[in-house]
């Protein structure tokens, strides 16, 4: 059967992009000293020019954040603070379409995902945390109600607005002020968020946004006026930050890489499982730290699952991210595409069997077809290293103990999936897996009320839920 789809592009006219942006410091737009291009990864079209934040820009932002914290924000009641967050949540909902289109243009993710996942979850995150602001004394065992002060936050490019919400909402709810740096390739929705803060009447200096690259991030990490750092990104950079922060009094939380195991037991409901595998690895082009990037199949059903998976993968529509039919959008950058190519080449060189879906890829922009590797061993690089792309490594097992052994055989510990129809087996596997988020008979679900974060080298601390709040409260245990 051959389905033909007419193009159904979302209009980009809802969003206005300035030719150049500055930083958002102390409630005002501040010109940058130099700029770099931000492009649409689906077309390589230049969208705008983004300011490259210097140490002086970071310093100005920290001073503004400190001044506002000391003079007003820390003295505001939790109830009033919360009302600002409610306002922000509402304005994000009102401007949801604008955010969705802008996110898709800047990031390359399908509009279906930015519209149905990133933007609504971001607004929900502010709504959830708004309600915490005046209830911090109920936030947990051995938690305090005292904010750290000025929080430096560095976020990745895979969920630009959602990661901003994960960082900013709890920081503000607990009474901190913020200096945030969006990722180099995806600054635009953060800059639109600055406008939301203005519309919400958020006091100047509560949220400061400095755009830039790694050097800007480094200036934030090493700034002595910052009390806490929150970072989401690679384990490699996370460790650099942890080393820099170790000799200081700064508090630190990290959400880092993963190599999530998605275990399919012989009794799983196969068709649902295949959908779950696809969602686990191809959601957001596989640019997901908690992706189910290692499929661990029980031998008895491996052939059947792989056959159905390939058939399903051939139906994944790859192309224009603004098209409402698109399932898989563009790889975020040339750099990331090169990394995916390097690791997949290593997969072939090390002897794994490569299969990619038969889809046409656009000429311009950065694209990678949905790909699986079979015959992967635990020693292969594609089983050990995070690819951060639409590439799935498939391993097999005979006994449940072997499945757990393979799943846990990684320095990461962010997520894992279990597919089985037997409740006791699911709960048993749940207990054995060393990962912070376990999806059983589902995958890649997120919610502001649900704590998210990793074991082992996947990070420190949690984000979301009651557990996430404590990271923003001074001297609090989980």
């Amino acid at each position: 059967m051959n389905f033909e789809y007419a193009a159904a592009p979302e209009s980009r006219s809802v969003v206005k992009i300035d030719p150049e942006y500055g930083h958002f410091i102390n409630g005002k737009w501040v010109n940058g000293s130099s700029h770099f291009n931000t492009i649409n990864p689906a077309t390589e079209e230049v969208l705008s020019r983004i300011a490259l934040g210097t140490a002086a820009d970071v310093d100005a932002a920290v001073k503004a954040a400190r001044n506002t914290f000391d003079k007003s924000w820390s003295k505001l009641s939790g109830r009033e603070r919360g009302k600002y967050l409610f306002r922000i949540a509402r304005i994000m909902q009102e401007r949801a379409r604008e955010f969705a289109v802008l996110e898709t243009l800047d990031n390359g993710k399908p509009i279906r995902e930015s519209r149905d996942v990133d933007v609504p979850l971001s607004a929900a995150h502010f709504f959830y945390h708004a309600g915490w602001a005046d209830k911090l004394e109920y936030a947990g065992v051995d938690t305090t109600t005292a904010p750290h002060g000025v929080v430096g936050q560095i976020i990745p490019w895979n969920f630009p607005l959602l990661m901003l919400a994960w960082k900013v909402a709890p920081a503000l709810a607990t009474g901190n002020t913020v200096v945030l740096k969006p990722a180099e390739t995806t600054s635009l929705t953060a800059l639109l968020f600055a406008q939301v803060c203005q519309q919400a009447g958020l006091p100047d200096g509560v949220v400061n946004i400095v755009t830039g690259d790694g050097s800007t991030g480094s200036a934030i990490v090493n700034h002595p006026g910052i009390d806490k750092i929150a970072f989401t990104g690679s384990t490699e950079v996370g460790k650099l930050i942890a080393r820099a922060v170790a000799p200081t009094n700064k508090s630190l939380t990290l959400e880092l890489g993963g190599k999530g195991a998605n275990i399919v037991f012989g009794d799983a409901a196969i068709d649902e499982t295949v959908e779950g595998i696809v969602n686990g690895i191809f959601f957001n082009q596989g640019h997901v730290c908690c992706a189910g990037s290692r499929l661990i199949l029980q031998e008895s059903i491996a052939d059947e699952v792989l056959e159905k998976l390939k058939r399903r993968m051939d139906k994944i529509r790859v192309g224009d991210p603004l098209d409402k039919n698109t399932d898989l959008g563009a790889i975020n950058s040339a750099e990331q595409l090169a990394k995916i190519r390097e690791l997949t080449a290593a997969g072939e060189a090390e002897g794994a069997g490569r299969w990619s879906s038969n889809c046409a890829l656009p000429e311009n922009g950065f694209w990678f077809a949905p790909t699986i590797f079979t015959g992967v061993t635990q020693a292969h690089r594609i089983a050990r290293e995070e690819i951060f792309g639409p590439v799935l490594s498939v391993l097999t097992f005979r006994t449940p103990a072997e499945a757990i052994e393979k799943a846990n055989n990684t320095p990461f510990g962010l997520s894992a999936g279990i597919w089985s129809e037997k409740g006791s087996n699911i709960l048993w596997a749940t207990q054995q897996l060393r990962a912070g988020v376990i999806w059983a008979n589902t995958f890649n679900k997120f919610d502001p009320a649900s704590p998210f974060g990793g074991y082992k080298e996947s990070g420190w601390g949690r984000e979301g839920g009651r557990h996430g709040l404590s990271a923003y409260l001074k001297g609090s245990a989980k």
Partner: protein
Amino acid sequence: MSGRLEVMKTYKLYINGAFPRTESGRSYEITSNKGEFLANACLASRKDLRDAVVAARAAQPGWAKATAFNRGQIMYRIAEMLEGRSDQFAQEISLQTGASAKESLQEVSDSVDLLVWYAGWSDKLPSLAGSTNPVSGPFYNFTVPEALGVVGAIAPIDKPLLGFVATVAPILVSGNTAVALASSTAPLSAISFAEVVATSDLPNGVLNILSGQQSELAPWFASHMDIDGLDISGLPIDQHGAIKEAGVENLKRISAFTKTTEPGRILAFMEAKTVWHPIGN
């Protein structure tokens, strides 16, 4: 001369439920606060630490799998065993630190009471620190705290018994196993505590105790890739930065505490695990 000659105790390490000497063959002299010879303690080496971690890693899944009720009972049993030997422990503390008999006895009773306090947390903290999460969708979602794994502990130099108990009890009660370094200057109380532990049904390898120098061993605790967490309450604050830096390679969870009764001491060495499952038929 009349009377009998005292039979003195050889203080050794405690690894995997046994009392080996250090593999290094080294010892160091422990003296009273007046400078009198008390004992030759083992000067544990990096290799002893590694052996202890192997034992702790092997024991960890079994200890974590024991029911919270069972772990609480065993922790309480340690308190019972310690109580029965109060006088001996008090005397040993006084010899090492010069504390008065009354002060030392107080330290022992405080240690016993602290063990009882932590024992009681085993089956209560998970219900306070866990949660069911009202997510927006047809999913059952809950978060449970779990033991971190193998945790290192650098016990304080002063309060050789109470400081040691305050460091290891919260680590163990949640299902972690521990490798603990006793007070460098007054390690005898911790080594004698091993005798208490050995008669309390704590499985072999759950608590391993080393005596030696902080300056030599703390960096190896920090950089060991199979230690998941580290309590550095016993280290001088000016050394915390370097130790934290050395612990980054495996993103070790490193904490220090001042209060002895603090649920946060337990939670610092636990991980929160969140589980999702669809609801439907």
